[in-house]
């Protein structure tokens, strides 16, 4: 199935960047979970297993031609919509939201899979659309519908972070394809009064309060505001060189929330300082640029769109997570790819890397 030519074209750079970030991530999880009471296997070890499993996923994906996605993307899309509805009906509740679907031995989070599927769906749709001067309003109506259904279903769970990410990924693909100015202006003109109407007429005062708290966490010093402040203290107190491995007071004394998952970067910044952050950010930067480079080198429109979509997914995760940790964005539960602890995030990201590797390997085949 895999011919020799493909093996010689393996993109080692891509694997290398990812592996480097994963190793830093495992090391950081080791430090972040030191103050925890550990039952069973330690977190860093489990994360290592997820990384290895992720690499297996990458290998499996690489063995199949990514054009399978082009053929089946609408089927996948339809199937996922059913799953998202099912989540709302029979899903497992945890922490005030219903995100998981229990398959007996296995729990899946359909909204997570939707990130990949929306990329494939958009890529397939835009491959078939003729665009000379960019997308017209008419061109975007159908993808808008495709997008609106899963986004609304995910928001209903509620999982605002994922909904926003799906939206941003789709938007990124559309921008890459190209939008006419008239399209942008039309949307702006429609959105402004719609937003105003929604704010003024539809939302109850307590809902407005929640949104304001969300946008400006320092409004509430105890809830998410407390987390943001503690995270900024952790990052800022790291200084240039950091407090040293397993020596961050904010993390070791557990002033940070979710410090092995969503706020893992905060722990890293405290212990390794600006220098450490610089290294990590540069790694992410080259990873993203490398993803765009794969898209550029791909001579196949579907592959190129797919690569841009996957890269956008990684990029937005990185920016939103880091922006939250350093107090630029509101607190949304978005993990840092390859770095935060967690199997779901690791597998989704690795599927993305598998797709990128797949495209990169087959760039000479067309």
């Amino acid at each position, binding site marked *: 199935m895999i011919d020799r030519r493909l093996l010689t074209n393996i993109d080692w750079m891509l694997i290398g960047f990812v592996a480097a970030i994963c190793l830093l991530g495992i090391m950081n999880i080791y430090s972040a979970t030191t*103050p925890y009471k550990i039952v069973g296997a330690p977190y860093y070890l489990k994360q290592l297993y997820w990384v290895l499993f992720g690499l297996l996923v990458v290998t499996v994906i690489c063995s199949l031609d990514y054009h399978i996605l082009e053929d089946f993307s609408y089927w996948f899309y339809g199937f996922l919509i059913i799953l998202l509805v099912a989540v709302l009906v029979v899903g497992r509740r945890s922490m005030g939201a219903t995100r998981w679907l229990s398959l007996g031995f296995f729990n899946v989070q359909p909204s997570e899979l939707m990130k990949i599927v929306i990329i494939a769906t958009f890529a397939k749709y835009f*491959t078939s659309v*003729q*665009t000379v001067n960019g997308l017209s309003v008419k061109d975007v109506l159908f993808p808008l519908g495709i997008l609106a259904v899963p986004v609304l279903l995910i928001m209903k769970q509620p999982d605002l972070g994922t909904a926003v990410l799906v939206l941003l990924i789709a938007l990124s693909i559309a921008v*890459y394809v*190209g939008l006419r100015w008239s399209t942008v202006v039309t949307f702006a003109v429609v959105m402004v009064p719609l937003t105003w109407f929604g704010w003024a007429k539809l939302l109850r005062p307590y809902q407005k309060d929640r949104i304001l708290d969300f946008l400006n966490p320092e409004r509430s010093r105890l809830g998410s505001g407390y987390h943001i402040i*503690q995270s*900024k*203290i*952790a*990052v*800022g*107190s*790291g*200084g*240039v060189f950091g407090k040293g491995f397993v020596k961050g*007071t*904010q993390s070791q*004394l*557990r*002033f940070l929330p979710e410090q092995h998952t969503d706020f893992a970067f905060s722990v890293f*910044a405290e212990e390794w*300082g*600006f220098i450490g*952050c*610089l290294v990590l*950010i540069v790694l*992410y*930067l080259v990873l*993203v*640029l490398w993803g*765009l*480079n794969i*898209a*550029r080198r791909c*001579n*196949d*429109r*579907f592959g*190129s769109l797919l690569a*841009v979509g996957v890269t956008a997914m990684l*990029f937005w995760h990185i*920016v939103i997570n*880091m*922006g939250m940790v*350093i*107090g*630029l964005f509101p607190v949304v539960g978005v993990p840092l790819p390859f770095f935060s602890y967690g199997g779901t995030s690791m597998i989704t990201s690795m599927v993305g890397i598998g797709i990128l590797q797949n495209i990169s390997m087959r760039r000479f085949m*067309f």
Partner: protein
Amino acid sequence: MKEQRFVRETSESKRRILILSFVVGGIFFLLLLRLWHLQILSADNYRNMSENNRLRFVPVAASRGAIMDRNGTVLVSNQPSFSLAVVPQEVENKDELLDRLAKLLGMDRAEMSERWEKGKGRAKYYPIILASNISRDQVEIVEENHLRLPGVEIEMKPVREYASGVLAAHLLGYIGEISEDELNAKGFEEYNPGDYLGKNGIERSWEKELHGNDGGRQLEVDARGRVLRTVSESYPTVGNSVVLTIDARIQKQAEKAFGDQAGAAVAMDVNTGEVLAFVSNPGFDPALFSGKMPADVWKEYLDDKRHPLENKALSGQYPPGSTFKVITALAGLEDGKIDENTSVNCNGSYELGSSTFKCWNKHGHGVTNLKKSLRESCDVYYYQLGERLGVDRIAAMAKRFMLGSPMGIGLAHEKAGLIPTAEWKLKRFGKRWFHGETLPVSIGQGYVLMTPIQLVSMIATVANEGNVYRPYLVKRIVDADGKPLREFKSELMGTTGISADKFKLVKQGLFAVVNEPGGTGAAARLSDVHVAGKTGSSQVVKLRDSKQATPYQYRDHALFVGFAPYEKPEIAVAVIVEHGEHGGSAAAPIAGRILRAWFDSKKPPKKEPVRLKGKGDEGTDDEPEPPAKKQGVNEENADD
């Protein structure tokens, strides 16, 4: 097909990738810029905040210094007190916990709940005191049920213990939690909310010495406030102790002598100004002020007509009555208006213009010279003398005794008293002085007001023949080990400039008051020591005749000022019994007992058996044996 269409767009899409790459680079640069701002520009700030997060300073209150009497008898010291505290962040169910505490300890749930609410908003994980001063039994119950009371802590701190209960309560004062106003005031910068400090009396005046330096522990805590380790520790320094000039034995006798009567007494060393006893009766329990004041006791204090919370020795201002005749007499002698032989015929009253001024003895004293005027406290003698002197000459003499302004005893709220002059009246009321107003002044009525401190200072100055010493309460400051740090010396405020022979004339009169037949102060007589003094009574309400059923609050105040021994004065005493009516019967016996206590304390080894007269043989005429009570009753007439 697909490929062909794509080729046309390839160059355009490659351009787009380039633009996206720059956008991505730009956004990552912004992230780095923000990190630069946090980690390099604001690093110090955030590092401080992380230290504040991690470290908690727990102050350890310094043990307050003790207060002792002149002989080293401890009057105020410390004992541990336990408080019930809670760390709200460690409590899951507040209502349940309060219910449980109220049930286990039998305490008022509403009050604990109120304190809890009040304590909110302070630093996280800082314990809130729910109840102070809980009993050892309650402490034990809390400790036994520790597992069922998450977040509940017992805090120990030293509180004031008053060894002799209510003894010298007004003088010692009490401590209390620092108030909002004090926190903002100058000189209290080092105090924190919740600190205790002296509110009154010596506790307040000597706060700086007594307080000591608080220490503290710097603890490392985690996000839940759990203490992980002690980072650094500074030990509190115990406050210095104050050694008073007071003699507890005299103080005790003086307070006992008052019984239920309201009033004040001050005893002083005539040659130094050291205050030996400082009484304001009735007293109060100072311990209640530092702990929890029961509402009924508080109400009792407020409702008591005798005003137990008032420091009468310090802030009480009374017309000195006939005790003031000492000043008028000296003014007359100094001005040459009288000498020892100048006589006046008293027929019971004196006419001035259309007014009649009555002598307290309506039958009159007959021919009266200086000595007799003092002994029998003849008012007419002083009316005439006052008229000839005029108010300003009397006032000038009073000023030589430093009357009319606070003596500077070193306690807050000391009052000035009042010595009227013509100028004063013009300023105060806009009216000129009438001749008729001088007459009451000359017998210590009218506008004249003096504090017990001024009364004792006045008589001490007579006793030592002209020296005005500043009365003082603190002999020395010692450190926790008893090593003296500062010694306070007697301070001469001034001299009267009156020759000794004039003082001698007045003193002879004062001797007669106590020791001669017809004297008004016989109740102050001692068996073995010659006492000299002057009685007085001061009107609370003008001119009443029905003597029998005067309500308490309208009865005259009774006064006695005196010193002893007559030959070589050591101690002066001033006693005022509010609404005691007659100085001779109410105040003089108390003065006698204070003097008795002083002379007893001076010869400790064999004071018990020796009760009969020692060496007294000169002036003692009639039975010297029973010192106080009986004689006072005999001479019931006193002066009026």
